[in-house]
């Protein structure tokens, strides 16, 4: 469905832009139909930049993004709009995704104006009601309100409903529940998982490993702009090979075990383990160490 090859984003830094900072460095990955892929990384790892590049909100410095076989790296105007019919996004902070001075349902009017200008109001209202109900919202309760009158969870559902209105195939979900409260966030996550059953693919960007594990069937671990490990979620989480993945997993606060009780890992791939991307000039190669499980090795 979506295939990124050597995706790179460079920022100029330093005086007169002489230095180059690679926020994303030759990232290659695939998202297939009905996949939920979690893109896991800490702050500054480039995970949001990857999401924004796929959404065409940030220009690509190098590499290529293909969608259903077509190169979408440089599409504009009409083609771009067609692309947005298939690929949509939901962002981290629900309160800043809504223009604070307008009512929250304005985002739906925008969708109607841009994508369904010919639809009659009656048909549109029905479509909107269906879409709101499918994300677990009661249209009567949530329409006609200002963003601050709705909760963060409701606003994120609004945005998912908006994407569904456009018949989206791939949803880029960038930390969409990190600002929500513990008691309501899991329901938004469940919603995504249920939409997957109906055929939606999701790129789930997160820093929280347990959320990534809960929902995804594939996981990508990103460190300083480089993919260090990726594969089926269970393999990445229960047979982590890269030292960075291992240290992440050992740092996650768990409810069944304290940090001091975590058993030491066997260091099988010492030469890989010592490698930190960005510190070395050596080229990395993604190597398949078991079926579909890739690790960055020199």
């Amino acid at each position, binding site marked *: 469905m979506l295939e990124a090859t050597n995706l790179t984003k460079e920022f100029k830094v330093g005086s007169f832009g002489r230095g180059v900072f690679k926020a994303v460095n030759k990232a290659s990955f695939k998202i297939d139909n009905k996949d939920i892929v979690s893109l896991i990384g800490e702050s500054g790892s480039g995970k949001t930049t990857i999401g924004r590049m796929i959404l065409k909100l940030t220009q690509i410095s190098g590499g290529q993004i293909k969608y259903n076989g077509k190169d979408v790296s440089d599409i504009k105007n009409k083609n771009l709009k067609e692309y947005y019919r298939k690929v949509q996004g939901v962002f981290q902070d629900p309160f800043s995704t809504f223009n604070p001075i307008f009512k929250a349902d304005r985002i739906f009017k925008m969708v109607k104006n841009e994508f369904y200008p010919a639809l009659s109001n009656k048909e549109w209202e029905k479509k909107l009601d269906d879409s709101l109900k499918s994300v677990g919202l009661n249209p009567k309760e949530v329409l006609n309100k200002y963003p601050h009158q709705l909760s963060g969870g409701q606003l994120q559902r609004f945005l998912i409903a908006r994407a569904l209105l456009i018949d989206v195939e791939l949803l880029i979900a960038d930390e969409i529940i990190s600002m929500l409260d513990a008691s309501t966030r899991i329901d938004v996550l469940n919603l995504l998982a249920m939409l997957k059953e109906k055929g939606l693919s999701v790129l789930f960007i997160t*820093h929280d490993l347990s959320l990534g594990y*809960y929902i995804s069937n594939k996981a990508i671990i990103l460190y300083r702009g480089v993919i260090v490990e990726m594969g089926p979620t269970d393999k990445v989480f229960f047979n982590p090979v890269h030292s960075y993945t291992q240290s992440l997993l050992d740092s996650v*606060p768990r409810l069944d075990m304290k940090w001091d009780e975590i058993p030491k890992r066997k260091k099988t791939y010492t030469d890989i383990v010592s490698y930190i991307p960005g510190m070395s000039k050596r080229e990395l190669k993604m190597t398949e160490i078991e079926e579909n499980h890739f690790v960055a090795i020199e």
Partner: protein
Amino acid sequence: MSLEIKNLKVYYQTLRGQVKALDDISFKINDGDILGLAGESGCGKSTFSNSLILLKAPMKYIGGEVFLDGKKLPVENYEKMKEKRYKDISIIPQYALNAMNPTVKIGKYIHDVFAYKNFSYKGVDNELKRRLKIVGLDEGILNMYPIELSGGMKQRMVMVIATLMNPSLLIADEITSALDVSTQKAVSKMLVEFRDKKFVKSIIFVTHDVSVLYQIADKILIMYAGKFAEIGPAEKIIHNPRHVYTKLLVKAMPEVGIKFSDTPLTGIPGHPPLLIDPPEGCRFIDRCPEKMKECVKEPPVIKVGEDHYVACWKEVKKNA
């Protein structure tokens, strides 16, 4: 008896009326305890930690008492608290990463803080360097500007500064929320080490992330909508919670090893009440799946185990 809170009430004054952000909280913690304070946004946890050290407008002291080491803390008096702050009770604020003046070298900044507080800097110079070593920072850091430090380094630096006078009580307000998991682990463990080395007698660790509390806290206090819900040993709160809210909250937490396709979790429907006009009685009543007719009355705080107290009618009935 290190810290005792009795019926503390702090409201926010707004144009629309008083927001009952902290309504009648009472509990005790012992010397050497790390108390984890958890709850959703708007539950009053930040109001609570601020009211112990920096109670100012629009916050409004309504009533209650705070005792630290047996002595009453004048929390309602901003001026009188000045001599207690930093020396007896200290805070690592939520945005500690931006707390230091960016144009002043770190060593000079600490100097300035001491001069402002009229403390002698000379005596602590060696201690400062010793503690920097403990948290794994080089003393050369004193000649650097805050901008040259990474997030984790800044957080550790602020921790050292905040505890330099060996305060009785240290409040850590969401200090790990903005950090990456590996740094979060390091900072949390350091906090435990500070307690073990007796740099601080006790710590209140405020966070929305219960799983971090399970790792480091001795006791956990759960708040809901400005009210006390449950307090108990960390092990008990996580593995044998008694308040309906705590049960649901712990159940809603994903963990590595739990998958949607195998064991889907469920959240708590609804959202917390508006604190400007909260419901009578138990404030969780609107979302509680097990509510009873008693719940419209204020639930009493009852003891359900050693050091384990809960304010839920369900437990009252069970123990009656």
